[in-house]
């Protein structure tokens, strides 16, 4: 089932991406082309194949649970578009 402009609008909202109304139809066309093209993967027999999640041996790297960093609040905040009293500042979230 091809995507329509309402589907694209819903996906854009999921991705928190503002897409102008006038772009929705052309984007639907582009996404449908790409999704139609990737559907050729259905030809591949993948019964019993485990999904590949990593190309390296998955042995989890562990380290001692010690604090080895910190005290760099100024570095963390240095690029903030807006800040207040040592915090990131954002529009009001709770009324």
């Amino acid at each position, binding site marked *: 089932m091809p995507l329509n402009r309402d589907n694209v609008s819903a996906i854009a909202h999921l991705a*928190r*991406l503002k897409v102008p109304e006038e772009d929705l139809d052309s984007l639907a066309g582009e996404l449908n082309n790409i*999704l139609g093209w990737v559907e050729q993967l259905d030809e591949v027999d993948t019964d019993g194949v485990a999904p590949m999640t990593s*190309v390296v041996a998955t042995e989890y790297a562990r380290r001692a649970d010690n604090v080895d960093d910190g005290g760099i609040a100024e570095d963390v905040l240095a690029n903030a578009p807006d800040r207040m009293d040592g915090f990131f500042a954002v529009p009001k979230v709770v009324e």
Partner: protein
Amino acid sequence: MTDLRNLTLAQARDGMAAGDFTAVELTETFIEATGAVRDLNAYIVETADQARAMAAASDARRAQGQVGAMDGIPVAIKDLFCTKGVQATAGSHILEGFVPPYESTVTQNLWNAGAVMLGKTNLDEFAMGSSNMTSYFGPVANPWKRKGDDAVLVPGGSSGGSAAVVAARAALGATGTDTGGSIRQPGAFTGIVGMKPTYGRCSRWGIIAFASSLDQAGPMTHTVRDSAIMLGAMAGHDPKDSTSMKLDVPDFEAALTGDIRGLRIGIPKEYVMDGMPAEIDALWKTGIDWMRQAGAEIVDISLPHTKYALPTYYIVAPAEASSNLARYDGVRYGLRVDGDTMQDMYENTRGAGFGAEVKRRILIGTYVLSAGYYDAYYLKAQKVRARIAGDFNDAWEKVDAILTPTTPSAAFAQGDKMDDPIAMYLNDIFTVPASLAGLPGISVPAGLSAEGLPLGLQVIGRPYDEETLFRVAGVLEDAAGFDAKPDLSGLGG
């Protein structure tokens, strides 16, 4: 001093060791060259003052007899690497003005080895592209042109700025990153050596993430020897990247023995593409002859799932990208576009900050990961990815390395393929399979097209066997004897 601009990295290293010139003299030459190639739009930020200070420090170390593997060598850094105190943009408006308070591991390794930073190079936005046309900071020009044609060509992408500055002899080497071919394809388009190591060989810490299961840093250089020297300085285990491998870094340069007698070189039959230019096929056959003449055994192999690599990649990479790029929300760094609510601010910021190709991939990635479609797209792609990796595992039973073309064409003109995303994606048809399998690959300039543009051949190696990869690539380079150069007369050359 203009001669210094035409040195290889290895020659510059040896020249400084012999006392023929200093790091300061070498660096001044390349600062001047950086100014002379500005028409290419290859740098986003130039760091001449920092380069001068680093070069002076290098000469001081040399006076004390303490030199590293890259001491005094001026290099360019793809603007996807975080560099402490120097803007890092990923080629995106959303990160314009972002000054990292920390240094990526790969660049820190280079500075520890004594290298000198000339600046940060242009790239496709968030490394998503094969032409360098998607950068917020404008396209990069390839220093090469077709014979008798003044059309401006793309340098390839996403590491297009890095490729252009090396090809234009404005840096002795440059870092790139490769997710589906972003080092090897621009290497081929600009007549230089582009090398992607095995996934896990270089730390990804401090590299702005695109698709985390695929991204790898690698060197872009004039020669295979330069590539081996530079990878040696970049690579190594890093506790800050849990996917970086706990392996010693071998002396890659020592692997260049020039002897591939008895080595088995695989030729995959699936890398013949419908509509592929005859000259690409002819160059590949010539490359096979070179391998045979050098004493290698040529083995026909099959990688049956090759044709599914690109569609697999265009599910896996956007899915990972949509997740990685969720962090750009206008709160902690980069662009913020205000809105009445927090949600509006997020959507406005991301709508204004990301370009068309990045948005397209975020939307695809969000869709294939969404409830109801995850199994049909993302899970299926991960399973096909396992089959593609399985093809290579089977091949390693029979061969030691694989030889293919790097790209299905030479460099194309700026603006071409822009209205058809899939045509653009096809650029990476020969490079994506090795990326999905995490394998090392290297593109070596091997000949010229009928239009006078460079063409590359790719060698793919076993995981963590970059030594064999370099050995084969070195023999390929010697046999090709590629000595063509772009016309740099308008670029201070």
